[in-house]
């Protein structure tokens, strides 16, 4: 509120004057950037499951979470009836089988997290706070990855607890469970990154959802088809490297070599070179997504 100097004494003054008209100042503690970042992280994480939003936004995430968890209950019940030391399906194999559900969750959640801010012109308001672009991107990325990780970890945990309840050997299941959690964390980071980048470039919510699912599923479909052709042709090394195409098979390969999970999809990264290539591609993919997000938010308009 700057008012041009008025009154007889200010007549010759060039500069504008801000009059103190007696409003009370805020002189309490300022909580700063890290506090804002933490709040944005928690709110976004809660928002991706619909907490703190309208009731009907809770329906979809909860439905998808249920779709991930209900089959595990059935598996556990079946395993307890049939007995034995093994679950009928491996931890990571279970996640890969439900990759469509995971893709739909990523697609539904990423646009809800970033597209609304862009479409309703809220982003400039965020950046008028002492918050930097980096903080916004980091908070959103971390929240998105955590949300996806929760979706992946919940069924794994049910499987693990079920295995313990049916008195399967802890010594075999605990390492498998921990490895599959590492797999889930890596997959969550990769998928959240891809989802957020696509969502940030398509402010229309419906289009963003369709775009993310299309990209994830088309990549998975191309990977499977190309790998089948390569296997039929006898080009085994090429078939192994085709796992780089889809994020699911990419993470599957990295997790096999680095964490020691069983591979679910066909093939594994060939040799030490293969491992290095798979790890390098994963790191580049995540770093690329982060970089693209930072670039996207370098300039935002208020419309």
């Amino acid at each position: 509120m700057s008012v041009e100097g008025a009154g007889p004494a200010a007549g010759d003054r060039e500069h504008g004057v801000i009059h103190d008209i007696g409003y009370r100042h805020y002189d309490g503690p300022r909580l700063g950037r890290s506090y804002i970042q933490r709040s944005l992280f928690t709110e976004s994480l809660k928002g991706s499951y619909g907490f703190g939003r309208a009731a009907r936004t809770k329906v979809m995430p909860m439905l998808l979470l249920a779709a991930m968890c209900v089959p595990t209950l059935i598996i556990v019940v079946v395993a307890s009836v049939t007995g034995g030391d093994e679950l009928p399906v491996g931890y990571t194999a279970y996640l890969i089988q439900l990759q469509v559900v995971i893709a739909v969750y990523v697609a539904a959640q990423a646009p809800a997290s970033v597209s609304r801010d862009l479409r309703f012109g809220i982003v400039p308001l965020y950046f008028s706070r002492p918050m930097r672009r980096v903080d916004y991107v980091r908070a959103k990325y971390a929240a998105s990855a955590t949300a996806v990780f929760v979706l992946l970890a919940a069924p794994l945990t049910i499987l693990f607890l079920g295995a313990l309840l049916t008195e399967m050997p802890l010594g075999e299941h605990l390492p498998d469970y921990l490895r599959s959690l590492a797999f889930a964390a890596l997959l969550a980071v990769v998928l959240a990154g891809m989802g957020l980048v696509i969502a940030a470039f398509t402010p229309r919510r419906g289009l963003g959802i369709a775009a993310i699912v299309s990209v994830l599923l088309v990549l998975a479909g191309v990977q499977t088809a190309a790998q089948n052709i390569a296997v039929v042709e006898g080009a085994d090394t090429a078939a192994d490297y085709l796992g780089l195409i889809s994020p699911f098979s990419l993470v599957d390969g990295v997790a096999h070599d680095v964490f020691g999970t069983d591979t679910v999809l066909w093939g594994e990264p060939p040799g030490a070179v293969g491992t290095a290539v798979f790890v390098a591609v994963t790191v580049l993919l995540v770093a690329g997504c982060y970089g693209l997000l930072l670039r996207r938010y370098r300039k935002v308009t208020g419309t």
Partner: protein
Amino acid sequence: MNGTVARLTARGLLGRRRALLLLLLPAVLLSLSAMARGLAGADQQLAVTLLGGFALGTLVPLLGLIAGTGAIGPEIDDGSIVYLLTKPLNRHAIVVTKFAVAAAVVTVLGALPTFAAGLVLTGTSANLAVGYAVGTAVAGVAYCALFLLLAVVTRNAVVIGLLYALVWETLIGQFVPGAQALSIQQWSLAVTERIVGAPAEQLGATSAVGLATAVVLLVVVTAGATWYAGRQLRTIRLTSEV
């Protein structure tokens, strides 16, 4: 049918980013087919896997989803549908026009590339190209009608449509055979099976439902969804997104 509504819908559907996505999908199918033909030669089994699994199973549902919900969803989302609804136009005519545009887009970008991919993969042998082209065309039209209705009825149209097309039809259909009776994909496959004829059985391109049932269900779903969408548009409630 109304020319102006059709023009505006087409322009909205083929806007920059949406068009990019709509073109990306058939481009992937064509390049995959070209690669398969180049590496593996003319293989009917491979063609069935690619056309049935990728074109009919993934490509057409996604195209139908993008075109069907995109024809009316964004307008309802940002509230600009009221400008259209205040014009002296029959609500059924609006829905039918939007449906026709979406169906045309899916046919051009889904069925034609499938036909081309079929030709690339197997030439004209066993009628596979024609069979899958017709199959994807009827599937695309039915998906458009269904997803347009979803877009009118709910704000979560895209997610619900994805759950139906991918989780119900593909994932649950694998484990629960009964689910396949209620699947646009299987109904269209029945049409494809009939056109391909005898070789369909040994190639594994068989449907879970009979041809007569499939055709009746396709017509009922397409016509019924379009009619009901028009009816729902008469009393549409505009709420803001939270």
